[in-house]
């Protein structure tokens, strides 16, 4: 059962909801052959991707997911559109709503903007990332990757490392992993930790060795240089020295720990290139693959209610 009209965040999902999405996604993930998973469950439905913020992989992933399910997919490049002419988000939403889309995939630079938009339209809205708030499909694809690799999504120790403060991926993952009863550690310099984060039921440290100790999963975050309005870290080289994932730091984790990264990576800043490419440890390419499967599952579950 997945009884939701929109997917705005992990916050609103129960553990059963999460399992339902992952189970459905598993059916799409079992084969890499795209012809085998092609179906027409969204045939006749219109999916609009509205990205108010640049994105390559997420937008492509949603587009492929929609197309594999038979939806008519349209991408709107919001950067170039009427939003630049001073039209408000609400007006844009109402205009689009009048075209009767069935599924709206939205990314926006402001926290809460996707939820605001969802209040004004009749279709299903999927949050593809809003400000520093949530990025639910990323957390779901991470969960699917972990579950497939580790055989379970409970009682794992997951270290999330790096720029937590500016990361919507971190927030969604903290919530999802917490709901599924895992032990979550956050590792990073104090300047990149949001205030009050320790009240989220996580352990917080600024020591990679302690944070990675016996971890089953090491999740690296992108150091969001474009969001830094000045001086969160002294230099990239000091950051790499203290927080960049290399073989020595990874040695503190369990021998079979997997390494994840939501991409795009800054090699030599938060992650060593060799670790990123190590097919025995890194599941970064698999995350991208699971991204399509999870987005197909989400689109189909939300689209089913609209047949």
């Amino acid at each position, binding site marked *: 059962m997945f009884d939701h009209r929109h997917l705005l965040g992990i*916050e609103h999902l129960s553990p059963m909801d999460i399992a339902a999405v992952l189970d459905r996604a598993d059916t799409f993930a079992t084969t890499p052959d795209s012809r085998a998973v092609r179906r027409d469950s969204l045939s006749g439905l219109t999916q609009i991707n509205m990205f108010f913020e640049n994105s390559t992989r997420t937008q492509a992933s949603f587009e492929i997911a929609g197309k594999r399910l038979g939806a008519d997919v349209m991408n709107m490049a919001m950067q170039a559109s009427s939003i630049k002419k001073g039209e*408000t*988000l*609400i007006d844009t939403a109402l205009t689009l709503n009048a075209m009767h889309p069935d599924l709206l995939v939205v990314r*926006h630079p*402001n*926290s*809460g*903007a996707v*939820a*605001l938009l969802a209040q004004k339209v009749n279709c299903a809205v999927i949050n593809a990332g*809003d*400000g*520093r*708030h*949530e990025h639910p499909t990323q957390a779901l694809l991470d969960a699917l990757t972990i579950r497939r690799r580790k055989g379970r999504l409970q009682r794992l120790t997951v270290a999330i490392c790096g720029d937590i403060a500016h990361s*919507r991926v971190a*927030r969604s993952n903290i919530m999802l992993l917490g709901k599924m009863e895992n032990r979550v550690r956050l590792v990073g310099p104090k300047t990149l930790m*949001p*205030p*009050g*984060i320790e*009240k*989220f039921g996580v352990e917080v440290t600024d020591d990679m060795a302690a944070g990675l100790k016996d971890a089953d999963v090491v999740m690296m975050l992108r150091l969001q240089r474009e969001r830094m309005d000045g001086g969160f870290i002294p230099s990239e080289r000091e950051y790499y020295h203290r927080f960049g994932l290399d073989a020595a730091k990874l040695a503190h984790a369990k021998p079979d720990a997997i390494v994840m990264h939501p991409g795009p990576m800054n090699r030599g800043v938060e992650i060593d290139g060799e670790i990123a490419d190590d097919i025995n440890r890194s599941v970064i390419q698999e995350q991208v693959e699971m991204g399509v499967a999870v987005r197909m599952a989400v689109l189909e579950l939300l689209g089913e209610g609209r047949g």
Partner: protein
Amino acid sequence: MTQTLLHNARLIDPESGTDTLGALVIEDGRIAEILTENIKLSDFPAGKAIDCRGKCVAPGIVDIGVKICEPGERHKESFRSAGRAAVRGGATTIVIRPDTDPTIDTPEMVRFQIERAEDDAPVNVLPMAALTKGRAGREMTEIGFLTDAGAVAFTDCDAVVTDTKVLSRALTYAAGLGALVIGHPQEPVLSHGACMTSGQYASQLGLPAVSPLAERMGLERDLALVEATGVRWHADQITTAAALPALRRARAAGLPVTAGTSIHHLTLNEFDVADYRTFFKVKPPLRAEEDRLAILTALVDGEIDIVCSMHTPQDEESKRLPFEEAASGAVGLETLLPAALQLVHGGYLDLPELFAKLSLNPARLLGLDCGRLTPGAPADLILFDPDVPYVLDRWSLASKSKNTPYDLRRMQGRVLATWVGGTQVYAEERK
């Protein structure tokens, strides 16, 4: 010589701290007499004796820090609409902010405001002027000329002067003229771009946030300058527990300092923002519940002198935006009294104590003789029922802008009639 009698009234006098049944005689725009017994109704012609039916008569509210959006944004609030909101809310004197567009920073602009108020507003309107030109924090305004034109205080509102040298000189100059300066205690660089108080909730919502300590830092700087210059200084809104020790020290040292807070910070907290409700976006941002309780205690203990509405009209357009982009501020003229009555119903204050914070203390700060039920004081009065319950409907407000955080909340207490200078300017419509 015409007299009006308000009888069978609960007389709430903050100056004597009394709440007694009696009558009050208005003559020539002033309170002529307070009677508690032997009231001879026969002395008053029909229509000039008003039976208050046991409801409360109190001195009208003196609301410091009201924004009227003239000039510049008259579609949000005009002198006429703000005046109507004021009489309905029980404010008989409003002290208006200079953060209009353009800023009120010349004597001509102050005169314009006084003229507009005389034309359109049924209440006393006292303008404040900016402390620095354009509220830009670079050059001080003509504090002398502005005082002569009628400015009662000087403030840059939420545009905190960043350059401490500029502020120091402006305060020194103002002190020389005996002018009152109203500050917004906030460390301006730290709070830049923030729309929430930092903590677990802001982190969960992913909104830019400022530490509550930024208020204390701003306050400490400003109080040090008060100590250096001797200027008469009032903090517009103290909203955090961490700021209170600095305020206490300044008081103990005998500095000419007073402090206010807004009704929103007394009755709401950060969780009211819920899922990005922009009507709860105010400046400074709503605080944690521990801070709200600390401020409430400080108010009860007299460390905070004044409660104001921080009336800030914003139209639907500027609020129907993502939280970060939405405009700050809430209307409050009509909801100040009913929201403040929560403090009475909650047992924190009695009615005379509440009206000390709403009427008497702000009147004293400004050197006005209203704010009390004393023979000779202006007959700026309200008649209100402190108990009547209702659900607030924001579309029923008289303000042009309807951005109240109390929409659909259960409220208790309503103004029944308002007099300004002895003239009745409002009577609630009987249903």
